[in-house]
Structure formats: C-alpha cells, structure tokens
C-alpha cells in the first residue's frame, strides 16, 4: 500500500525538478561559490539574470542592441555629418565607393551613406519599441482578462482575434496605411500594432489559463483572496514571461516590417530617413553602386537578428523546460 503511490509521486517530482535545477544550474558558471550562493535569496528573475550573463548568445545580442540604441538616441556620437542638412550632399559626389571620408560611400544624391544609416536607426527603434509596448499592453491585458474570466468573455475576445488573424499581414498593413494620405512613424505603428496584437493576446491568454489552474491559485482562493489580488499577484507574475519573450522577438520583426512598408512606399517618406527607404532608393542603381543598398540592409539584418537572439536567450533563461 505504501509502495503504490511512490512511482507516481516520484514522477510528479521529477516533472517539477527543472525549476530547482535551474537555480543550481544557473550557478554552473560560478559553481565554486556554491554554498555562499545557496544562502542568497534568489527570485526567478535574478536566477534568469545569472543564467543570461553566462550566455554568449545573450552577450552578443545585448551588445549589438546597446550600440543600436545608442545610435538612435545620440546619432552625433557616431557621425558629425547631419544628413538632414541638404548642404552635406554634393551631387558631384554621387555613388562614390567606400573611402576614408565616406566610410560607407555615398548614394545617388551624393549623401553620406554612413550618416544616413546612423540617423535611420532612430525611426526603427521608435517604431519597434512603441509597437511592441502597445501590442504587449493591449494584447496582454485582453489576454489576462479573457483567460481569467473565461466563459462568454473569453469566447468573444477569442473570436475577435481570429478575425484579425484572418487578415494577411502585408495586405492589411498596406490597406491601413493607404487610408492615410502621408505615412509617418505613428501611422506605421498603428498599422503594425493593429495586426500584431492578436498574437500577444493568444500567448498571454494561454499562459494565464495555465497559471490559473495551478495549486497556488487555488490556495489563494481558499484563503479568500479577491479576484484582482489573484489576477495581479498570482497569475500575472507567472504568466508574463512568455509575453516578454514574444515581445522581444517581435520587436525585431517590427523593425523589419517598417523597412518593408517603407520600401513599398506606404511607410515613411522622404525626407524622413529609414533603412527601408534607403534600400528602396538604392535598388535601381544596385549593380553600379551596391553600397547604398547593402549597408542599410546589413544593419537591418543585424538588428533583427539581435532581437531574435535576445528573445531566444531570454526564453531559455525563463523557461528551462524548453532547453
């Protein structure tokens, strides 16, 4: 009789092990400190941070992102040329190759490609970050409400998101942006956010439903906790990790989407500077002068890649079960 439950419970314990393994696994790099580290109170977030610091993938991605963020906040640190000043472009200098004066060469109008690439980062960051925050807040909050409430509210919200899922994203963005006479940063953010929030909603809802059925939520109900307390103190902190991961990965894709829309002519317009616009302007003369197309494309790829790598690393650190 005493034996019969043992295999089952032993199994259940193993299934939960990863959360404990992680705390010791994270100190793998600093395992020699062993004991001392064991005493220190460690939340899952600080464990995740310990884990992340030891990952080359994370360090590399974080470095690229920091450079990129610095570029968008303080472009003058990187170049003394102001590409918004028409005087810096000399038509006579058009389509020059790489040189000491023009690191990435010059474009069709004789403007410095390096300066334009640096100044183009700001629009990418503003659009990427704003869209990410907007979708995470809106989709995440609706997902929390739908997952927690369940029933008719959940069904209604879920059907609405399915309608949005049915819209092809490129076509949808083209349609939304073509309504506005001129594209700017905020119309692009709006178009991307409208099409991207259902994804965040789904992930948040699934995470909330998983967290809701956990024993500690039942324990809180048994104590007489109110619905807001259960939602924000017990469910939200345990459901937020996947939303953060997806938001990080999405940030990269939003940057790419902005470039795509600007390339198609519905995103940003001159005199705004954007990597997508630069690629569009340079494509006709690509064979004569590949630089003006390749350099913004390289920065775009690097940025998108960095955010996707960051998202992967964060996911691994927060959810060791996926390893």
């Amino acid at each position, binding site marked *: *009789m*005493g*034996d*019969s*439950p043992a295999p089952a*419970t032993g199994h*259940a*314990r193993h299934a*939960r092990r990863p*959360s*404990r393994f*992680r*705390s010791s696994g994270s100190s793998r790099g600093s395992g020699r400190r062993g004991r001392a580290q*064991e005493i220190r*109170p*460690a*939340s*899952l977030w600080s464990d995740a941070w310990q884990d992340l610091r030891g990952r080359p993938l994370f360090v590399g991605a974080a470095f690229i992102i920091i450079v990129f963020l610095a570029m968008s906040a303080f472009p003058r640190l990187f170049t003394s040329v102001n590409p918004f000043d028409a005087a810096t472009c000399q038509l006579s200098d058009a389509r020059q190759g790489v040189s000491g004066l023009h690191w990435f060469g010059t474009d069709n109008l004789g403007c410095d490609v390096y300066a334009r690439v640096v100044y183009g980062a700001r629009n990418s960051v503003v659009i990427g970050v704003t869209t990410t925050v907007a979708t995470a807040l809106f989709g995440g909050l609706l997902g929390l409400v739908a997952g927690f409430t369940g029933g008719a509210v959940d069904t209604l919200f879920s059907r609405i998101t399915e309608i949005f899922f049915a819209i092809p994203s490129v076509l949808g963005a083209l349609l939304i942006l073509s309504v506005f006479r001129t594209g700017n940063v905020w119309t692009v953010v709006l178009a991307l956010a409208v099409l991207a929030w259902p994804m965040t909603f789904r992930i948040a809802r699934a995470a909330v439903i998983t967290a809701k059925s*956990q*024993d*500690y939520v*039942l*324990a*809180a*109900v*048994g*104590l*007489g*906790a*109110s619905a807001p*307390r259960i939602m924000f*103190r*017990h469910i939200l*902190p*345990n459901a937020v990790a996947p939303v953060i991961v997806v938001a990080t990965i999405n940030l990269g894709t939003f940057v790419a989407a902005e470039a795509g829309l600007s390339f198609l002519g519905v995103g940003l317009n001159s005199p705004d500077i954007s990597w997508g616009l630069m690629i569009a302007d340079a494509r006709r003369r690509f064979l004569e002068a590949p630089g003006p197309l390749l350099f913004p494309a390289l920065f775009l790829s690097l940025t998108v890649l960095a955010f996707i790598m960051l998202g992967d690393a964060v996911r691994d650190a927060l959810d060791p079960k996926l390893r």
Partner: protein
Amino acid sequence: MAATGEPILEVRHLVKHFPLTQGALFRKQVGAIRAVDGVSFELRRGETLGIVGESGCGKSTLAKLLTALERPTSGSVRIRGREIAHARGAELKQVRRNIQMVMQDPYTSLNPRMTVGDIVGEPYEIHPEVVPKGDRRRAVRELLEVVGLNPDHADRYPHQFSGGQRQRVGIARGLALRPEIIICDEPVSALDVSIQAQVVNLLERLQDEFGIAYVFIAHDLSVIRHISDRVGVMYLGKMVELGADAEIYDRPVHPYTQALLSAVPVPDPEGRERRQRIILQGDPPSPASPPSGCRFRTRCWKAREVCAEQEPLLQIRPGTAHASACHFA
C-alpha cells in the same frame, strides 16, 4: 488528541455531480460524473478524521467541497453552524478564516514568484483584521518557527527549499489565520517516506498546541492509522465505513475495507504467513454510471441479489460498534 466537545464541522448528504456535456454550440447534458454522492459526517474540536480510498473515489473533490473551492450540487457543509457551501462574498470570506487547506503537491502549491515570507504573510493581507499591520512580520517569523523553519529564511523563494520544507511552508500558511479546521489533501504523499514522518509528527504537534481538527485525506493506510482518531473509507463517491480507527483497523466489516486492509504490508514475517490477502477483481466502475444498489457489488465476493436491488445505508449494524454500508456486515 482526544476529540472533545461539540461538532465544529457538520457535513450532511453532500453531493457533487460534474455534468458531462455534448455539442459545441448548443450544449446539452448527457450525464454526470458522481464524484461525491451523499457523504455525511461530523468532526469535533481537536479531532482527526482520516479519509481513505483509492484514486478517483472522490476524496479530493470532498476536500474542495469542504473548503468551498467547489460548489456542491446539493447537501450542506456547516462550520460552527454557519453554512459554507452556499455562502458568498464577505460571508464566505469570514467562514473561510476558520477552515484552511494543506495541499498535496508542495511543488505547485507555492507561488514561485513570491518569497516564503510573503506566502505565509498573505493570509494577513487578505484578512487584515487578524493581525495589525505592524505585527505581521513578527507573526510570519513566529509561524515559520512553529513549523520548524528558520525565520531568517523568510526572504527566500520556494525553489530554494526541499519538498519537506516547502510542505512546512504550506502548513504555516494554513495555520496563519488560526483556523479550527485544516483540510489536509494528501499532504505527505508527494514526500519521501522519511520526510512523511516528520510532516505527520509536525501536524500532530500543532494539533496538540492549537487544538486544530483535521480532515486528513490519504491513500496510505499506515499514515491514516497513525494520525487519525476516526477513519472514513470511501468507495466511488460514497462513505462505506466510518468509525474509530481501532474499530476500522481491527474489526473491519465492509468487504471493501477488509480488502484494503489486507493489502497493507505487515512488518512481521510470522504474521505474514497466516494472513490472507483479498485480491479484488476488476476495476472500480465508472462514476458516470455507478452500479445499482450497492456500488461495490460488482467486485464483492459476498454479493447477492439484494445488493443490486437495495442500496445499503451507512448505519450502525448489529454486532458492530461503528457505521458501515453493507447488507452482510
């Protein structure tokens, strides 16, 4: 440990049916899982009632009904005369102060994002009238000490503790509001045997100190025998035998109890030779369509026609001192 005084928990004809539905758009009920089907008992102050039964017999549903995590289909659960099964809002919150739960799995019953101090102190945040704000830190430290944990570890997180220590945290949380009743739903079955003994002894010590009454649910008969004053045996949503632990263990009258007890390992090689094991045939029937009459008749070696026709009631029968639900007791 002796049970004293008036009953503080009265359960009458408690029934919980989970509906089985069919159809995606227009749901219609095609049947019901009868998880708990007419259970009655009472619990006195400072007493431990052990509930045993195999998986799926409705033990955990019973625990959820007692703590109002599930609403019964019918029947009543009264705590000091106050009905909890149908209470709502502020009234329910008040009644809950007096009945708390210790859960089965210490790995999922503690919020991984909260420190142990916050987990144990949460009952005070939910019921701020219990302990004034300034004293809460001290109260939490006391609780941790009472359950045998180092109060300096209050700012650690659950994953930094072992299974047994986590279960102590769960017990401290259950104790915080000083309830008179604690429902323990398999509180030791997820722990190693050596740790089980520590946790069971802790529960007994707390009972002596604070006069708590336990409803102790488990499938391990030895643990139940160790801690219980009275034992109830459940089969397929019904209580088939209920009585003092010595009565049940030494003179079981229901065939199901006899079969269960015959499976307990005996540490004495001499006795092992003489005793007879009763091996039950088949599996328990589906709780969606239980057999007519006595629910155990499909696996019972004593079954006669009367068992299919008449349902045996849980009552004290001639020749025994405790209640059982068998025509041939």
